[in-house]
């Protein structure tokens, strides 16, 4: 297990370095630079030169890269070129918003997805399955942007049930915080719910036709216990994998959702930074995202061994 873990950590470090290099070079390969994006329509060569000098953009890529890496190693992620705010504080304030939004979205998606998946598997060939399938198809095919816009038009403008934009921190007012986040989380969770539903359904169908289920039924266990304790538990490993794999999709979905609902999260921070060519922000955001991705993948691997002891046994062998 220790060797396995060490191996994973080593692989993760290499991935992180590669990701940093790719993003550093990629963002500079884009046409336009932070000075141009900052100056906008009001540019003159003298001030463009001053901005480039001030942020070291006139240095070679190698020097810039070394500065970024050496500062990042000390925990200094630099300052936003556009607003002058320290990037660390920008990330520190944006990350909790996206984490809360994502956790809520995963919770909502899991409840809907697993529930609908179980119903679809148990009620196979009946209207309940058709309805669940139709919902899943809808969840998969409707873009977040459109869904968000519709939600605002129906639920915020017409019915006034939820705020159309804005954010209240959890510790300032937990109720207002949830009120602001429910709608974005549902929108963000729709795609994931659909994927979870399809996966739960198919693995439940597999499980329900397995020998141990027949044995459990033959022992006279009530159907609820057969489905809940035996079939569902064995199906959940696939669901956990799917949630882990879909995390990337969730983050990219958060980009759109946060922009629609004006949430001060990580996704919005990233997109705006790219449009504004705010190099320090983009680099830091990617570094943090890549780290989070790697850590989550590690956690998912470890979760396998909790859910399925056979994996732990194999890993320790």
């Amino acid at each position, binding site marked *: 297990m220790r060797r396995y873990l060490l191996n994973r950590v080593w692989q993760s470090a290499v991935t992180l370095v590669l990701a940093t290099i790719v993003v550093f070079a990629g963002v500079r390969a*884009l*046409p*336009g*630079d932070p000075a*141009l*994006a*900052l*100056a*906008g*329509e*009001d*540019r*003159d*060569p*003298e*001030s463009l030169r*001053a*901005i480039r*000098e*001030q942020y070291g953009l006139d240095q070679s890529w190698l020097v810039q890269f070394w500065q970024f890496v050496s500062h990042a190693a000390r925990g200094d992620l630099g300052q*936003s070129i*556009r*607003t*002058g*705010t320290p990037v660390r504080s*920008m990330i520190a*304030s*944006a990350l909790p918003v996206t984490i809360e939004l994502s956790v809520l979205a995963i919770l909502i998606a899991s409840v809907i997805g697993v529930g609908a998946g179980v119903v679809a598997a148990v009620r196979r060939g009946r209207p309940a399955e058709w309805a669940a399938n139709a919902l899943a198809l809808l969840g998969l095919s409707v873009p977040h942007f459109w869904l968000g*816009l*519709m939600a*605002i*038009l*129906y639920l*915020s*403008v*017409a019915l*006034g049930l939820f*705020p*159309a*934009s*804005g*954010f209240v921190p959890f510790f300032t007012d937990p109720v207002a915080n949830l009120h602001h986040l429910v709608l974005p989380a549902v929108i963000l969770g729709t795609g994931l719910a659909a994927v979870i539903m399809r996966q739960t359904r198919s693995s439940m169908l597999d499980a329900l036709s397995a020998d141990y289920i027949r044995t459990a039924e033959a022992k006279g266990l009530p159907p609820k216990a057969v489905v809940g304790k035996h079939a569902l538990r064995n199906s959940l490993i696939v669901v956990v994998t799917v949630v882990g794999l879909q995390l990337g999709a969730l983050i990219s979905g958060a980009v759109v959702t946060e*922009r*629609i609902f*004006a*949430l*001060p999260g990580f996704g*919005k*921070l990233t997109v*705006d*930074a790219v*449009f*504004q*060519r705010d190099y320090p922000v983009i680099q830091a955001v990617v570094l943090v995202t890549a780290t989070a991705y790697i850590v989550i993948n590690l956690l998912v691997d470890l979760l396998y061994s909790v859910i399925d002891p056979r994996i732990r046994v194999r890993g320790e062998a």
Partner: protein
Amino acid sequence: MTRRLALNRFIPRTRRRSVVGYGAAVAVLAVTGMISTACSPVEPAGSDDPTSGGQSSAGQDVFGEPADAAQVKPGGTLTVALSADPDKLDPTLSRSLYSRYVFHTMCEKLYDLGPDAKVVPQLATALPTISSDGLSLTIPLKQGAKFADGGAFDANAVKTSLNRHLTLAGSARKSELGPITAIETPDPKTVVIKLSKPFAPLTAALADRAGMVLSPAAVAKLGANFSSAPVCVGPFKFASRVAQNSIKVVKDPQYYDAAKVHLDSIEYRIITDSSIRSANLKSGDAQVADSLSSQDAPTLQKDDSVSVLQSQSLGYQGLTINIGNANGVGTPHKQLDTPIAKDPKVRQALALSIDREALVKSIFNGLNTVACSPVSPKSEFSSDAAQVCPPHDPAKAKQLLSEAGVSTPYKVEMITSNNPDSLRLAQALQGMVKEGGFELVIKPVEYAALLDQQDRGDFELLQLGWSGRVDPDANIYNFIGSTGSQNVSGYSNPEVDKLLTDARQATDKAERVKLYGDVVSKLQQDDPIIYMYRQRNLTGVSKKLLGIQVYPDGVIRTAFAGFAK
């Protein structure tokens, strides 16, 4: 129906599909949205419909009224949905137009603009007294004003700010202030600005960010990081900022006219999508929304809970032709070897191919206005000569192309921003100029990439505009003057240069008016930029709110607004 026919006329069949697709999407939205107001018909341009809830029709300025104190209740937080995130909240370094919306509430200027686009005193008590040689401006200052940190506003503070604007690395104000040689403070309530050459646009510059006065104590403490906690004289003071998301200002009790300030605080919330800004306005999550789309405005005009303020921009939207920008702006001009760069007749032909009236009616619901010159008709330096407009004449365009020895259709590539409004404009232009013998190839690019291509001179034709400033000099010199910092056309005409320099240095208004008229006549012969239309600043305001105003500088004035009783 009329609109659709007008559009079809100018959009080529191959392009119509995407417009129809867009229309279909909008139709689906409208139907599924099930909001009755969303289905209102579009008002024709220039009509004056008395049924529009007391609101102005398209094409008329509606600046808003000051709040009547008797009808306003004290307190409350106003939420303004802003279309873009302001950059640094530092008047010296700021370049984004949107920062001006925030500054307006917390950083007063020596001068401001009135609804008639004329300069009026703000922290000064009168317009500057200009010496007969034009080399000295004396500005009398308001007494008793205090900065938000309690420091006294005086001539020294003005001097500190102006010096900072002139010397701080990366200052965006330096070029606006002109050839200042010294700033003198004979007494605490008077500032004297000395110039090496007369510079007529200076007073107007002091009615913008260059005229904002910063707290010397805050400048000394924060230095180049002033934007982290800006301190000025203003009805509100900076409270907090969440990067790329929101900015909050709160009422400053030390403000000299605090009794006129009704709101407790203002939150600027960044919402980049125009339809979502409109939705926030309708749902009440925001009470003010800037830069409404000309597609959304007619619908909002019919909404009982919302007013739409309109003010014609002082800037313009146009087509810039690359004449001599072969190696990038800032390098010596080198003419491109293309017919449109070499021969003014080809550029004139392109100008004649554009039906500006049809453009503003079909693409912008008649909300924008036709423009044929960089001088706004609202400017006090405008004249009949500055507003002359060549007629739409595709036949003459073809004739000019033939005289220039160019075979038709003449293929020209145009780069444009990839936002929906710019693309619709480009497609309409494409159909329009076909009649004049041009084949327009559209190359949409993202905004930062567009700026990059523009500065490198990597374009033949580009569609972009300028938001506009009060003084015509700021709308012309940099873009047309041979040494202009933003002369991306690479245009150079010694006669035009002389006219512009004379206009800069003239102290007599009538003389400046005449000189700008002459500049426009020359520009319409050479056509380095084909001016097409002036945008209308469209601002949505909840009717629960009183006292929101928008002047021709486009800045939304929220400071003295309040919620209705």
